[in-house]
């Protein structure tokens, strides 16, 4: 399979990202850092240790992951919608000798890159304002979650941006599905806080595998293989689904 078209489209998206990087980073970092300051520092005295670590440390990996995956999702969903419905640039790509799959793969790569860049940027800021330091192996293990996690959310964004024609719908899906899914997955509290009957269900969510797994990898220094596989397989499945759904939509 040829990827020349994907690369050209990804290059275009990265050029635009680079051009707006300072303002994008300020906007994207503001939210997780506000949460971090409010909960991690403001509430520190009230919460104490969670699962044996300070609360600020407990939520740090989740905030970085959250930034990455929401950035990947938003970029993909809005970019696809905008290029398809507003600018009609997708049509202008489609009259060149590249395939529809090349277009969607290019857009998935772009969303994914947005996620990684913005997640890492927030990670660096948290690193700079906290005393927490991690060994290199932990960071590597963490990337084994961050990378497929961003890919998963980028693909999910592509699917939503492909099937939804109205911007209101996109906003609602974000508020009703994406944010709750992220917040319920053990970002701010341990899974043990859930009633025991609910725990298996929550654990089955791919976002739980992502957030729990990422924290265990970064803070605990263990590598939760099952969680990692769960995230990777989910990413692969959404990738296949995204390509298939986009191709179907374009064939209409």
């Amino acid at each position, binding site marked *: 399979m040829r990827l020349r078209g994907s690369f050209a489209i990804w290059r275009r998206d990265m050029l635009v990202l680079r*051009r707006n990087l300072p303002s994008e980073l300020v906007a994207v970092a503001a939210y997780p850092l506000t949460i971090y300051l409010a909960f991690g520092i403001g509430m520190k005295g009230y919460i104490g240790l969670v699962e044996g670590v300070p609360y600020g440390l407990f939520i740090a990996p989740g905030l970085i992951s959250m930034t990455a995956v929401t950035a990947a999702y938003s970029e993909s969903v809005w970019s696809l919608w905008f290029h398809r419905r507003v600018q009609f640039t997708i049509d202008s790509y489609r009259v060149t*000798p590249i395939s529809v799959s090349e277009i969607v793969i290019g857009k998935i790569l772009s969303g994914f890159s947005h996620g990684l860049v913005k997640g890492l940027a927030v990670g660096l800021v948290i690193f700079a304002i906290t005393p927490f330091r991690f060994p290199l192996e932990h960071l590597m293990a963490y990337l084994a979650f961050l990378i497929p996690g961003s890919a998963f959310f980028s693909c999910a964004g592509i699917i939503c941006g492909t099937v939804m024609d109205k911007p209101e719908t996109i906003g609602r899906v974000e508020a009703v599905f994406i944010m709750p899914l992220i917040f319920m997955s053990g970002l701010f509290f341990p899974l043990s806080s859930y009633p025991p009957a609910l725990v298996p269900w929550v654990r089955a969510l791919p976002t739980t595998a992502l957030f729990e797994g990422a924290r265990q990898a970064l803070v605990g220094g263990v590598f939760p293989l099952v969680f990692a596989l769960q995230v990777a397989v989910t990413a692969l499945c959404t990738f296949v689904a995204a390509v298939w759904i986009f191709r179907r939509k374009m064939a209409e």
Partner: protein
Amino acid sequence: MPSAILTRSLTKQYGPLTALTDFHLEVDQGSIFGLLGPNGAGKTTLIRILTTLMRQSSGDAFVEGLDTRTQGREIRRLIGVVPQENSLDRYLTARENLELHARLHGMEARHYRQRIDELLELMGLAGRQKDFPDTFSGGMQRRLVVTRALLHEPRLLFLDEPTTGLDPQSRRAVWDYIRSVAGSMTIFLTTHYLEEAEQLCDRIAIMDHGRLIALGSTQELKERLTGGGNVYQIEFDEGAERYAAVLREMVCVREIEVSGRTVCVALEEWECLSEVIAALNGAPVRRISLRERTLEEVFISLTGAGVRE
């Protein structure tokens, strides 16, 4: 040599709506072909099928002998497309828009840089290449889209309403640019400006409600549809109705229409004009003039005068 475009029984349905019905069309290579029709006639639908953006419901469509259903990629190598909506990337400068397009066509940087320079110069956009297209006037944006469509030296250029919404000066400028680049390329354009088709096209097709209703050169169409243009306007000082009644009885008068003091007479052939004049002997005739029916009238008479949404 295959035809540049060939469609056979081409049909497209959007749910219950049939946008294109049993459409047969053949366009020769190297010609400038105009497809005329009011809004909603099905012009864009046809272009979207030919440019592989959409699949037909049934029938065949070939571009340069290649089947639109199975040889999309090969077709897209040969065509340039100026869509009805501009589809420029407002986050890229004019030049970056062109560079992206060149890369999607797999052109090498050393090759496309020079080609972009030449085309920008030719299209009068060289001075604005570093600006973003949303700062351009409508005519300049249109020229940029045309430039983009020409970049990879297509054999066949599709233009979907290239000048709709432009002021008369910009429209003429776009025509000049199109003429100057035509060369040996086949150009397929849609429009609802008859003047545009008359000015630019070798052959014209008129369509409405998804059907082809007339096809020929501008001159042929006018002659065929207006009976060769033997239409005269006779203005009387008074009694127009009375004289019209006299004329209506004559064998060589094909059609007659009275509006106020003017009688409009369509003759079978120009030779019977003298008979008409003889019959009007002594009548208070103020003026007789030959009325050239414009393509516009042909168009309105074929597609009806009602406003299309």
